[in-house]
């Protein structure tokens, strides 16, 4: 394993962490959107607000982390991605602005009318952003991003079967993760009705995500031989692991053991993203650009590695503190 491979693994870890923690926050927006009118949706929305309020900004930093690692360590890939996937990335950036500010504004206004507008901005963009990022992943994974800091097809690169599956799967996965997390949050508030409310949604989303992921493999066998062959070849153990974790998690959800279901959901989502990485190795851009070719000089890679290790030492305890305080309900909505 070369130094560049190590950095690629760190990048993949960043993508996985963003998919899990950022994904759960996006999913919360999905449930916020579908929670119904102001009166009916008030209780679920309160849980959603309490659940993601303290953590979403920290979770969001994983996206920045991934972008910085790509542009510093694999700058050629970064240029190709941003040139080719200009449209979905622009949409995602706009969505991120709407989502963050909509959420922050909603928290501090009192009138229902305004809360509805800001809530709508937050919730709608919570669907647009994961779709766009899933489509970006699909474009990269299906070899539609050319090497050399050049522009591929501006439209086909993200409006293709793989991207569409990627986008829809991202929405489903976010909804799934979030619903599972929200079951625990509702449990902490000892609101049995809401526990049941989110449990039903978690089950539905789990099944939805599973169906999309599985059928995606069949749908895409003509679009994207490279990825499918490798998902069913070298990455098969990881894919199977994801499926097993997903199924066990579903069983636990059905039986009402939400705490454990949470960890299985994290495992299922993490391993499906990892499977993409395993399938694509040694390419940073599938079929077009290898990790080794795109890698920055060693001194840069070492610097990023050292910063990453410092980050682990500083941030893991800090994040741990944040999550523990949050889980013990020591952090309160204002």
């Amino acid at each position, binding site marked *: 394993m070369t130094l560049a491979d190590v950095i690629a693994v760190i990048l993949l870890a960043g993508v996985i962490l963003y998919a899990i923690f950022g994904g759960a926050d996006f999913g919360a927006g999905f449930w916020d959107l579908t929670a119904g009118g102001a009166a009916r949706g008030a209780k679920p929305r309160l849980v959603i607000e309490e659940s993601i309020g303290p953590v979403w900004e920290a979770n969001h930093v994983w996206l920045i982390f991934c972008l*910085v690692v790509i542009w510093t360590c694999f700058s050629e890939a970064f240029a190709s991605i941003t040139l080719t996937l200009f449209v979905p990335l622009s949409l995602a950036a706009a969505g991120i602005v709407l989502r963050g500010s909509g959420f922050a504004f909603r928290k501090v206004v009192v009138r229902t009318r305004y809360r509805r507008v800001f809530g709508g901005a937050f919730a709608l963009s919570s669907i647009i952003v994961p779709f766009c990022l899933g489509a970006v992943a699909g474009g990269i994974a299906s070899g539609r991003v050319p090497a050399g800091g050049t522009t591929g097809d501006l439209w086909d690169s993200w409006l293709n079967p793989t991207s569409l599956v990627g986008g829809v799967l991202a929405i489903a996965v976010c909804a799934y993760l979030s619903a599972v997390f929200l079951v625990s949050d509702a449990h902490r508030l000892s609101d049995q009705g809401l526990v049941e409310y989110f449990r039903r949604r978690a089950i539905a989303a789990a099944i939805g995500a599973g169906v999309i992921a599985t059928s995606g493999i069949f749908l895409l066998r003509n679009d994207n031989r490279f990825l499918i062959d490798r998902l069913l070849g070298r990455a098969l153990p990881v894919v199977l692991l994801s499926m097993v974790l997903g199924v066990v998690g579903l069983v636990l959800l059905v039986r009402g053991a939400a705490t454990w279901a949470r960890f299985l959901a994290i495992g299922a989502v993490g391993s499906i993203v990892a499977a993409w990485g395993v399938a694509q190795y040694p390419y940073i851009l599938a079929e077009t650009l290898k990790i080794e070719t795109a890698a920055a000089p060693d001194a840069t890679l070492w610097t990023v590695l050292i910063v990453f290790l410092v980050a682990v030492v500083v941030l893991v305890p800090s994040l741990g503190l944040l999550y523990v305080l949050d889980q013990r309900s020591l952090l309160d909505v204002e």
Partner: protein
Amino acid sequence: MDPVPWARAQMAFTLAVHIVLVPLGVSWAAMTLIANYRAIKNNDADAMRLAQRWSKVMAVTFAVGAVTGTVLTFEFGLLWPQFMSQWGDAFGIPFAIEGLFFFTEAIFIAIYLYGWKRLRPWPHFWSGVPIAVAGIGGSFAVVAANSWMNQPAGFTLDAAGKIVDVDPLGVIFNQATPYETTHMIVAAYLVGGFMVASVYAFAMLRGRTERYYRLGFIIPFTVAAIATPVQMVVGDFAARSVFHDQPVKFAAMELVDQNATDVPETLGGYLGSDGEVHLGVPIPGLASLLSGFSTSTEIDGLDSVPASDRPTVSQVNTVHLAWDVMVGLATALLALVIWFAFVWWRKRALPRSKWFLRFGAISGIAAVIALEAGWVVTEVGRQPWIVYDYMRVEDGATTNSGVWITFLGVVVLYAAVVVTLIIVLRGMAQRWRAAELAGDEDIDPHDTPYGPRSHRERETERV
């Protein structure tokens, strides 16, 4: 459509908006902690109320700052892919460090903002300290990246112009880093202080002179009052360093067309296409004196480099105007600070004059304008380069012709967000004010800090 002008416009616009939120993100936490510290130490209810309210507002401005900062991250690729492709290996390094600080900031800001009710007073106070530290570290890293664009260093190129080796410390601590980073960090405290203070000066002008408002003015204004004279020294040092490191930028600032000694400091005025300075009030020899401590100091003119390697005449005039505006406003703010310091020294009280409050009320806007102007000096003054002497702006830009669409979209989106932000913040202030007028301090029982938890209560009320 040619994407280059649109890419420049979009980058300039999004940065211009984000940079206003930066001082709040960097320095407001420190000011809140000062209030928080006083509140706990002296059992000061007014200071406690300020700290709590500031942190609530900070939650909103930090969120908007975080997302507008994310847009900038995307824009490095969306607008400047060739720049990133060629220089990311070096330019990216400070951002990796910045990411570390931003992460720390986001984590502890969450703990601090959401910890008011249930954490114990001193642990809660300490949970806020990393925010202030990370704010300084983060600004250092980002501005170090900008310094690198002005004074690129720490890399080896092969014959094809590709980076083959990097010296990370050389990148981070390039020639411009010491003065640019210090200048921006002090600016964050200066601008943040005046911004917050001006809100309370405005309230006092409207007759709200209770201790709460006075304290709300004094804490941030004192922070700004300390930062302002420091900034004059740092700024003077920075200008002299620009004279040595980036002579063309300096020539633009001082409207120097041809190499000359005994160069006057021209206030106002503009450079005509004939190379002559028009209008303007020259102070003989001052620019030379300030640059080299002698009026015989020779200053390189714009003509010292080919026309294609220096800013255009209109860019030169923009730089000079921005430079004058920054120095002029900073001098006016310094005068206000001296007024404040003098009266405080003699009477241990705020100046009574309405004029002091009037100037105090506009000091926030003046400081923001000075900040924007300073940023214009450094960015426009570097033109036509994106990496000084290595890469031109147009060579770093995207080739996607649709940038004009994203530019328009961003303008509409940001206008909506900024207007809403102002309305929302005003609404919060009005609610607090209404609660006070009703004489009901405890209208919102959740505002009691460090109290027992009352989750159920709130839930029923909200629903």
